């Protein structure tokens, strides 16, 4: 069902955990199956004054595909300029993993969304203009996160959760 590449990233996921120092965080959840992903990015200016994602990490609650796509999106975005990173799509993530089962394609959307959200938060914090495509995706994602939080209300009320 899963490609070797998916299994490889699941077994030894890259860039996992929380960054000690980060510029922004993208929090997304997929309402369909309850996957949740938090993506941390550290953004620095390079010699040409371009914003570059110099470090990246993630924390994910989810299935094999969710963990593998988290790992893959972090690989793909690391070292990229923000403009390059914004252009990354869920299809890029899935393709790099050699494909995902159709029922798991939404997991790759989750990873691309988390990156989108992290960049959105970064630009907002910096009082920088938000590209229209980024803003539109942000609106859709925000609606989905709200729905997920409602579904997880019981869980978040639990002690220590």
């Amino acid at each position, binding site marked *: 069902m899963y490609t070797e590449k998916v299994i490889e990233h699941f077994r030894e996921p890259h860039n996992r955990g929380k960054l000690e120092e980060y510029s922004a965080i993208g929090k997304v959840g997929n309402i369909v199956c309850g996957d949740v992903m938090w993506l941390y990015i550290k953004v620095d200016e390079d010699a040409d004054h371009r914003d570059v994602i110099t470090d990246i990490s993630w924390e*994910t609650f*989810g299935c094999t595909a969710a963990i593998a796509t988290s790992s893959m999106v972090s690989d793909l975005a690391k070292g990229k300029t923000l403009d390059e990173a914004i252009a990354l799509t869920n299809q890029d993530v899935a393709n790099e993993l050699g494909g995902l089962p159709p029922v798991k394609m939404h997991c790759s959307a989750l990873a691309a969304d988390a990156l989108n959200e992290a960049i959105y938060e970064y630009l907002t914090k910096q009082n920088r203009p938000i590209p229209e495509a980024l803003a539109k995706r942000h609106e859709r994602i925000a609606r989905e996160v709200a729905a997920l939080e409602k579904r997880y209300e019981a*869980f978040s009320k639990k002690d220590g959760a």
Partner: protein
Amino acid sequence: MTMQTYTYLDNSATTPVAEAVLDAMLPYFTHRYGNASSLHQQGREAHKALEEARTEIAAGLGVSPAEILFTSGATEADNLAILGLAAADPSKRHIITTAIEHHAVLHSVEALAARGYETTVLDVDPSGRVDPEQVRAALRDDTLLVSVMAGNNEIGTLQPIEAIGDLCREREVPFHTDAVQAYGKLNLPMDRIDLMSVSAHKLHGPKGIGFLFVRKGVSLSPILHGGGHERGRRSGTENVAGIVGLAAAARVASTEREEVVARMRGFRKRLMGAIAEIPGSRLNGHATESLPHIANFSFEAIEGESLVMKLDEHGIAASTGSACSSPTLEPSHVLVAIGVPLSMAHGSLRISTGRQTTEAEIDRLIEVLPRVVEELRSFSPFKVSR
């Protein structure tokens, strides 16, 4: 991965065929291949094997051979019980079942609901038990059937089928039980049951064969039409090798039962003790009123499909009721019915043992499980209270 290091703890999904079962079956593929309906010698031999198997299975349950009707498995047996009863008595338009039945029962009942039948789907308590009083309250004059499983396939909880059977008897309503996981492990109150579904492959028999017990006097219309096999109630050339295998599996189970069930109970107890030590874990099901071979747990902050995959990486096979593992992306209806919070339902793990399960395999799971739970939690956004 060698067989020696592979730990198979998913025996509720299916079991390896026992050697004795395979040995009993093999001649029926190559040497005794006759069609049990044929007149010639080959046919007569096949027929003899078929009827001997039927007699042996019936004797094991203390019922009459004519009450055993072979099917392709439990899904067909469940469908036949429900749809066959409905077709035989169109005047009865109400069905009672529970929220935690197997989909073979629930979807058959839903198929009738779509045709205008009224259904009462009973809730269960947090351990997964149905209260017989709910059945009493739900029974009506036009109730076609009550279907309550003997032991649940996901969480193991046993149902009070004796009490439910009594209530059905009082009201003269047929009582069906899906005994797929209980058959061969527990004593079944056959005097209270009118229809019962069984599958061979959950009991170290082959896949593709099972039976429906139908008490004498219960009228059932066929759902498969054809040559009139099985006294006209289930057409289709009998799967003689499978049926011989089913009888052999029942024999193996009955011979070893005491010893195997005692061992399974011990494993379940050990698992419950060891897993309770893992922070943020819970048992789904009932601590004692349970099938001996099934134990279901949930772990906070992690997701079951990735847990199953991590265990697989370590050569351990188990299963989950997580949404991510299901083709519909919905969490298990059983876990939802017993009120497991959604996040915990996503993080469920079912461990099910078989006759071949060893103490060393349980040791191995107990050693590996806390580590993989910890590993997955190390990069989960949710934290667990200690």
